[in-house]
């Protein structure tokens, strides 16, 4: 084994770090907060595209950089550490782009990939429905053929960035008679299409990221179907092709922990720095341990992908652990801050800009998004350990 990165990889990390240090400043992040767009910046996404980093691990023939998974890991680790906004490109780069590359027609590739690699087109994902969450294949949104088009009618929910997106990739039922996994098709839908209504769903910190999307006879040309009719479920599985280490969770936690360490060194209670309090020390040390352990399993995921293996079990484990770690860390941060822990953004009294409470309440969603942590545990049990289905 050798845990060292190669010299050119280290140089690349330095280059990314220098760029992010310059771009992702305190002022920049506060500006996003003021706009209520904590994790969303078209300008920043475009800057990454100009650097050639947005689609760095995509094949060169599709406008990517042909980078290795380890280089992508390094990049994602730094992006996470600087807590930089990725909302404007995450769907396109990680999900829809790889799906079109794997299953799209030449025309679809020509039409859609450049907008993604250039950071110009924002995508949202129309998968979840009111009655299809973890059991996604039971979705009811219908697509009915009419001439050269499909007419799509139904409701999507928890659609992140639907109010900001240009396009949506969505699953709809094209054969209601078939077994549930075999009657679904995969569509690319222009969000400006008539018949689409987007309604905000406001989260616990009063931020607007999620939406309900209502589709009422939305006309989608047949050429916008990806893969064959009724094969949508299998097409959607390619969305697992991107870098899956979730390294951004532990590296973002690392930055947050560093902030907390500074805070407890500078803050006195009863005349003593908080850093001398054994309970505080123990809690923060525990977080340092968990962050490091999480980092290593994320490295393992990237390493497997680097070798061409599919991290069927390690990837869900990393997501599961990282999302729960983020909850624990931010919760511990609030506990340590005591009364100050409840302060919101904007209060002059709020330690660390009031980001701790906000991050904590945001973190709840990460344990649910991208497959709930219960689904992750099911995957570990059934695929990883070979246990019988419940």
């Amino acid at each position, binding site marked *: *084994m*050798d*845990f*060292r*990165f*190669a010299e050119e*990889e280290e140089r690349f990390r330095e280059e990314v770090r220098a760029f992010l240090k310059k771009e992702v400043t305190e002022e920049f992040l506060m500006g996003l907060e003021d706009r209520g767009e904590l994790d969303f910046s078209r300008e920043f996404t475009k800057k990454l595209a100009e650097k050639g980093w947005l689609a760095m691990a995509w094949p060169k023939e599709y406008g990517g950089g042909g980078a290795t998974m*380890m280089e992508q890991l390094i990049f994602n680790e730094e992006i996470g550490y600087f807590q930089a906004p990725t909302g404007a490109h995450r769907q396109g780069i990680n999900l829809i782009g790889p799906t079109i590359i794997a299953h799209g027609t030449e025309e679809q590739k020509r039409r859609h990939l450049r907008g993604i690699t250039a950071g110009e087109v924002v995508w949202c994902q129309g998968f979840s429905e009111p009655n299809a969450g973890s059991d996604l294949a039971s979705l009811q949104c219908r697509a009915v053929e009419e001439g050269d088009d499909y007419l799509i009618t139904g409701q999507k929910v928890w659609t992140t960035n639907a109010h900001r997106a240009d396009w949506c990739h969505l699953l709809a039922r094209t054969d209601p008679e078939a077994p549930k996994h075999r009657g679904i098709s995969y569509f690319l839908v222009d969000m400006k299409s008539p018949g689409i209504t987007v309604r905000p769903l406001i989260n616990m910190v009063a931020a607007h990221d999620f939406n309900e999307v209502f589709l009422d006879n939305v006309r989608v040309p047949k050429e916008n179907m990806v893969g064959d009719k009724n094969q949508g479920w299998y097409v959607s599985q390619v969305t697992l092709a991107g870098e899956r280490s979730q390294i951004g969770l532990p590296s973002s936690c690392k930055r947050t922990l560093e902030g907390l*360490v500074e805070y*407890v*060194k500078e803050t006195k209670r009863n005349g003593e720095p908080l*850093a001398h309090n054994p309970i*505080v*020390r*123990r809690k*923060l*040390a*525990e977080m*340092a*341990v*968990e962050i*490091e*352990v*999480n980092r*290593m*399993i994320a*490295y*393992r995921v990237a*390493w497997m992908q680097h070798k061409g293996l599919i991290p069927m*079990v*390690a990837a869900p*484990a990393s997501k*599961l*652990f990282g999302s729960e770690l983020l909850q624990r860390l931010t919760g511990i941060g609030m506990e340590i801050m005591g009364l100050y822990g409840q302060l919101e953004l904007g209060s002059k009294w709020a330690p660390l800009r009031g980001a701790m409470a906000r991050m904590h309440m945001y973190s709840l969603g990460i344990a649910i998004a991208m497959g709930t942590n*219960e689904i*992750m*545990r*099911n995957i*570990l*049990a*059934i695929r*990883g*350990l*070979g*246990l*019988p*289905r*419940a």
Partner: protein
Amino acid sequence: MNLDFTEEQEMLRTSARDFLTTECPKTLVRELEESEKGYSPELWKKMAELGWMGLVIPDKYDGMGMQFMDLAVLLEEMGRNILPGPFFSTVVLGALPILSAGSEEQKKEILPKIAGGKAILTMALTEPSATYEASGVHTKAVARGNSFILNGTKLFVENAHIADYIICVTRTKDGASPEEGITLFLVDAKSPGIKCAVIPTIALDKQCEVVFENVSVPKKNMLGELDKGWPLVARTLEQATMAKCAEMIGGAQAALDMTVAYAKERVQYGRPIGAFQAIQFYLSDMWMKVTMSKNITYEAVWMVSEGLPCTEKVAIAKGWVNDAYKFVTERGVQVHGAIGTTRDHDMGLYYRRAWAADQTFGNTDFQREVVARQMGL
């Protein structure tokens, strides 16, 4: 970066697993737990023939010249199978510090004996003060002529009752800090004045109380420098801590494997209990802790193997693996139900070892404090 083991390491793992499965069944483990010596001289001889004791000893001292990382692979298998006996104390607590700090004469005398399975070693570090910190070392060594005279009581000394040599950590001077004035000696275990008694422990792993009463040790048996022995102890502790973690991840994997197998075969309410989601969630959490333990252990072992600074990483690994091994064996007992709580069931063998290993070379509270200090708190 390369996160794979070498082909040689994979071969070492496979052959060690096969050997231990055949030569050290659980019936032998139990027999050795109850025996006075705590090891099997026949098995010890076979291990020597395989070159295990000399694995990390250089060729010129009759060893195989392999690295600490290779040793960790072997230890993982020993932990997986549970191998009672003095391998750990002889190789990790004996050969490694001699390799680090021994004189050429000391190396020539002792290392070939270790490699040949002809000498059993241990280190006497901890005392009734029960800490791995320098402040806990009170056993005195005072110069007299060409010798030093040792007086004091050592506690939790593994296998001292069968050892040929005891590396004794002593205080030769009261310095400005507890780390100053520590000196190590290679003591012939048969020296007059040494009294040794095995103490009953949960893992029946033959830890001893060793009393040194006016024990005379020739000056030439000093290991390393006078008064400046603490860095050698600290280095040995880092190696020993990661060696222990390697054993622990092997044991944790074995406990998980046993539990998964049981969950697939035990039927209640007409189906294997492993089909119930409650059990599946226990098992997936166990899998996660074991897998994460392995990854962090391999990284820290690699750092030790490469001689990189690793105080924080070692403390991170041990703190995590402590909790993981205890968690996995506790859930293991729970999933097995009542049978898992019996003395006869193998899960208990692992459960008892998890708690013994937790304390050895620093429990989680100790390691967290090391991490806190390293973080600048």
